[in-house]
């Protein structure tokens, strides 16, 4: 199981990595700090699952998502964003995502995220 984390905050990067490793130790994880790095890693690493922020320096998460969906409709993508606007959620949902979680990552949302990764893993 390969997971790509796209997130500009080092704090949240560490939080997500720890969460995933603690619950699914067999996961192989790669981390990108913006959309451009995320897209490049997506092409090289070919993850099964991506969790991405939206507002990031350079290429943002929404643009990265659009670029990924031009060539790949299978990879499961979860948005983890502080943006609570309904319009934002509607826009990214139209691009084909598996879920949208608003920051902060609470215990409840962390459980949801792990469940989503597990579901994607066992669906393979």
């Amino acid at each position, binding site marked *: 199981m390969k997971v790509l984390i796209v997130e500009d*905050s*080092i*704090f*949240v990067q*560490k*939080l997500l990595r*720890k969460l995933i490793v603690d619950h699914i130790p067999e996961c192989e994880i790669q981390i990108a700090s913006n959309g451009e790095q995320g897209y490049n890693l997506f092409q090289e690493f070919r993850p099964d699952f991506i969790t991405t922020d939206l*507002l*990031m*320096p350079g290429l943002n998460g929404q643009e990265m998502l659009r670029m990924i969906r031009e060539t790949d409709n299978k990879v499961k993508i979860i948005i983890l964003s*502080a*943006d*609570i*606007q*309904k*319009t*934002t959620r509607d*826009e990214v949902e139209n691009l084909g995502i598996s879920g949208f979680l608003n*920051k*902060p990552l*609470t215990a409840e949302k962390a459980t949801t995220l792990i469940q989503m990764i597990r579901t994607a893993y066992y669906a393979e």
Partner: protein
Amino acid sequence: MLNDMQKDLLTELVNVYVGQAANMLSEIVDKRIVLNIPEVELISISDVDPGDRRYNIFFSEGHLFRSSLQFGYEFQGKAFLMFPVEQAKVLANICLGELGETIIPDDPSLMDTDLDVLKEVSNVLLNAIIGEFGNFLEIKLEYVLPDIELIYVTNSDQQILLQNEVYVLVLHTSFLLADTDVTGIIVIALSMNSISSLLAKMDALLEADHG
């Protein structure tokens, strides 16, 4: 410049939005947040009396950590979250402690890791408030990445936040992390056009409510 009903509704909206943001902070740090009642004022720069304590609460002399989030285009403005530096350090330590990071006790300086945490916390809090304005107005707000800076405020530059606007709607409130002395201040400044849009939407809501 705001009538009583407009001021009441705006205060209520800000109260709810800040309450939601505080709830998010509470979840991050696992502590109760004590909120103060927000104050809402539409002011012009010429009305600001440097000696007026209402404005000095967020311009008191000293080092501040300040995070700002600029938003636009249909609804333009800037939101600020500020903490005295030593309290920002306490907040960063609480967050990093949750992650199991090593904390150096009694070190008051803000490291890169602290600034990264504070930037993320500010991002979550300010988005929670400003995003709800977008939902209320039913428009999409575009954000610029939040800026963080450490500033030294002296008694002579009390208008530092207000210097580029003729009129601003200042919504300010403060909150306290229970069992700590961490007090944060939130200020939202809106451009005149945005204030008009907001008032029009509020008036329509008030009119519908009262027939």
